[in-house]
């Protein structure tokens, strides 16, 4: 089971955090700080895997953003790399050449997309098509609401 996923920038700024295991905020901050500094100190050719406490850390850098997952001993490292990649693909498809700024400004969308891919720390839906379909349906609902609100504002309903 994945314990958490962190997205952070090369400057060490945390952009997204998803915790599947409950920790007090203080602990979360400490873990985040430690991992960010450990990973940023590593060189590009190094392996993507780390031993950390009793967890395995799998990370990968995409442009200016690091994606970092903590998994348990029996979990598969290589496939976790591909969970990250699938997530990046989804973000990319949705935002169109995703960049760090997209994730900053639309962090809630980034969360919603992750919730379709992973639920409770386990991979839930690996089909890119199905995830995008679900997100598109959400966007449709959002647009309906906006139209409805606009109509209400001008007094049509």
């Amino acid at each position, binding site marked *: 089971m994945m314990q958490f996923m962190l997205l952070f920038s090369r400057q060490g700024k945390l952009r997204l955090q998803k915790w599947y295991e409950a920790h007090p905020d203080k602990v979360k901050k400490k873990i985040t700080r430690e991992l960010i500094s450990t990973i940023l100190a590593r*060189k590009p050719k190094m392996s*993507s895997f780390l031993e950390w406490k009793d967890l395995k850390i799998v990370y990968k850098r995409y442009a200016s953003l690091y994606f970092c997952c903590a998994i348990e001993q*029996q979990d598969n490292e290589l496939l976790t790399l*591909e969970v990250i*990649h699938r997530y990046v693909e989804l973000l990319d498809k949705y935002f169109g050449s995703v960049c760090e700024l997209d994730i900053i*400004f639309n962090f809630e969308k980034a969360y919603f997309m992750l919730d379709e891919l992973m*639920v409770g720390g386990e*991979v839930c839906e690996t089909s890119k098509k199905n995830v995008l379909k679900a997100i598109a*349906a959400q966007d449709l609902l*959002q647009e309906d609401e906006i139209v409805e609100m606009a109509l209400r504002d001008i007094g049509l309903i």
Partner: protein
Amino acid sequence: MPAVRGDGMRGLAVFISDIRNCKSKEAEVKRINKELANIRSKFKGDKTLDGYQKKKYVCKLLFIFLLGHDIDFGHMEAVNLLSSNKYTEKQIGYLFISVLVNTNSDLIKLIVQSIKNDLGSRNPVHVNLALQCIANIGSKEMADAFGSDIPKLLVSGETMDVVKQSAALCLLRLFRTTQEIIPGGEWTSRIIHLLNDQHMGVVTAACSLIEALVKKNPDEYKGCVSLAVSRLSRIVTASYTDLQDYTYYFVPAPWLSVKLLRLLQHYPPPDDPGVRGRLNECLDTILNKAQEPPKSKKVQHSNAKNAVLFEAISIIIHSDSEPNLLVRACNQLGQFLSHRETNLRYLALETMCLLATSEFSHEAVKKHQETVINALKTERDVSVRQRAVDLLYAMCDRSNAEEIVQEMLNYLETADYSIREEMVLKVAILAEKYAQDYTWYVDVILNLIRIAGDYVSEEVWYRVIQIVVNREDVQGYAAKTVFEALQAPACHENMVKVGGYILGEFGNLIAGDTRSAPAVQFQLLHSKYHLCSAATRALLLTTYIKFINLFPEIKSQIQDVLKSNSNLRSSDAELQQRASEYLHLSVTTTTDVLATVLEEMPPFTEKESSILAVLKKKSGRMSAQEAQREARVQAREGNAAPATEKAQNAQLKTKPSSNAAFPIPQLNNSTSADLLGLSTPPATQNSIQSNTGVLVDVLGDLYGGGGTNTHNGTTTPASLSMSGATDNIKKFVCKNNGVLYENDIIQIGIKSEFRQNLGRIGVFYGNKTSMPLQAFNPTVSVGPGQQGKVTVQVKPVEPSIDAGAQVQQLVNCECIEDFNGLPDLTVGFTYGNVPQRLALHLPLSCNKFFEPTDMNGESFFARWKNLSGPLQEAQKIFKATGPMETASIKTKLLGFGMQLLEGIDPNPENFVCAAIIHTRTQQIGCLLRLEPNRQAEMYRLTIRASKESTAQILADLLAEQF
């Protein structure tokens, strides 16, 4: 500002831009505080706030939280959003809650009703939101609230696939908090059959749930094995176009494949030959595919393909039954060892560690030794080098130990600081485990100290000393080698410690050579003295007093050092005390006494290396898998030191620490006069064993008033002599130290040590009253059972004990032949003019002269058969008087003085032991078997001994202990 998709919340986007435009941290904090104040006032004052605005502000709070600020309000507004009928408002409410609300928050109660409503909604997107929320923050409370709804959702024919997926993983989360949530019975089969679902996403999600259920209850879910195998088989043989969107970079359903393989690892290889064959075919196919040319150059293709491959290898290792597959797996990993992808090299090294422990593939792994050593030298990534070290450790056996240890030593010189300590431990363990020639072992450890002295933990140098003390053949070599090592101009303090200890014990063995004459040895050690820490100096002082005993010719030289102001008036109390006491010892005692006090250390009890325990504690990686590996290695080597013994190891630490080498009572201890009495080598086997939880600090306990039986001081002598004493004396069969007797007037403590056929018992008499005890006269006499079989010499004591004071009496004893019963100890004194007489026993039983003996199963049974004479065996069947706990039984058997031999009796519940009784005239071999019957709460004890009569004596003694 980039476009915001769907243009949800402009205000949020503006705020985020503002924050990003802040030039400094202060400006950012200021902007945030302004926004927080704004939101707070909106939430408080504005009653007309609509859902959209609430959503916007909650979202801003979320953003502020993600920036790392604490958020202490807004939770209620988020909870309100849950009951909105607008999807996006609900969604933001759920997001806030899953990011900010902890499992145990009081808010959970408030949201349970909203979640319940959404779970029952006819709109599947609402149901899904609720399920995802539970999967994120699910708690026991939620398990209680939704335990019945979610399983229904999961198996209902009407549920949409996407909801089923979330439901499966939601249930998994709740199952992790509350295992009872999964209904048994017909549900089991309905859940298992989700593996047959047409929708791959449903199978993927369900597979994780089933894996968790299987872990808890493998038998109930056994039916999933054949379903999983056939599903796997369909995937593995599918072409990549078959599975459409579930094919990932030309690899068919890698996530589901890996989950299925993982699920199957919870079971042994299937019994059904058909299923088993099909599974092996799958594994075969996966291994074959690894050899095919890649369908894509993309790393995603290779990662997904290899993810499945590694999981397949993992199940092959787990089954450990198909030699052919194991060897193929090993060859495949061998290819990866020199792959250009660092990740693959890393994983190959890691996985090979496990292969190295299988008897089928151990040899195959060894073929890659050179590549692994090369990895150690050339890998640029320390985490990969770490894996290489692990693998070398795992593949090491007698045949390659010297080479591997040498390579590890070479690497240690340049190794990263982060892994040095662990490497030192590993080298030390390998050197000990595979040493055929202990001079090699000594060389390796001294090299370790030389190369990485700072990383050599105490356990490592304790251990080398234990081994040198126990092995006569290596003592001279060790003395010579440390002497040479100490000649280096700069040598590590740990080297000084080892050198000091070894020369103090065995310096005489090299003293014949003029180059290492006594004075030279002393000067060499003393040249390091002033550079060392206080602990090391203390150890060296002990070495010096040992030198006075070994080499009388340099006595005056050493006395000068002890006398020097820097020692005699050292600011360190320990050094001061040692210097002054050793000085007096050397001045006042005769050479005989000195020789007795400073006798050579007796051998340490042979125990599993304490270093191994340290290594396990140190490396977090020592997971269950690692433990399994450990077990396999041991099984392979026929090394029968089971894990339980390791646990005991912690208790049975045999540390030749500077203190233990010559214990110095604490300064504040009024009884420091007993320095010479009992502080001869404390590490005799018996006293070590008595450490196992039964050690009562005689001195500390004395005035604690924790007596077992208190008597009124005016009771008659007759009644005094009765109870209290008898209770405790029994316990002394299995222990050597503790309180023997106590009443209101007096406490009698015992500290005893035995070695071979000799023993020394210190009896401590403490006056608990405020009046002196007069005419104090303790006597010891042997009874008929011991007459002529054991000798007891008692040192006289002063005829009075002052109020609150303690006196000590030494009893020296020798075992002539096996004996029955205990000598009498009669303590007479007058207290307030009333004569008192206590009739006790001296805790000196035949088993005290045991020396534990290790042996393997084969020789145990051979000896057992040899001792078949009718009087050589004694058997007792008796009812248990206490709880039949393994740990306490072991403690008693160890305390009894025998070696516990584990893994020998075919029934793991039984205990077998072996030991030798040393008497002046002969040695008596003794074997023991204790069979607890927990149902009947009975024991059967069988003892066989080489001398007739001994078995019965021992059986009588031990039977009363359970």
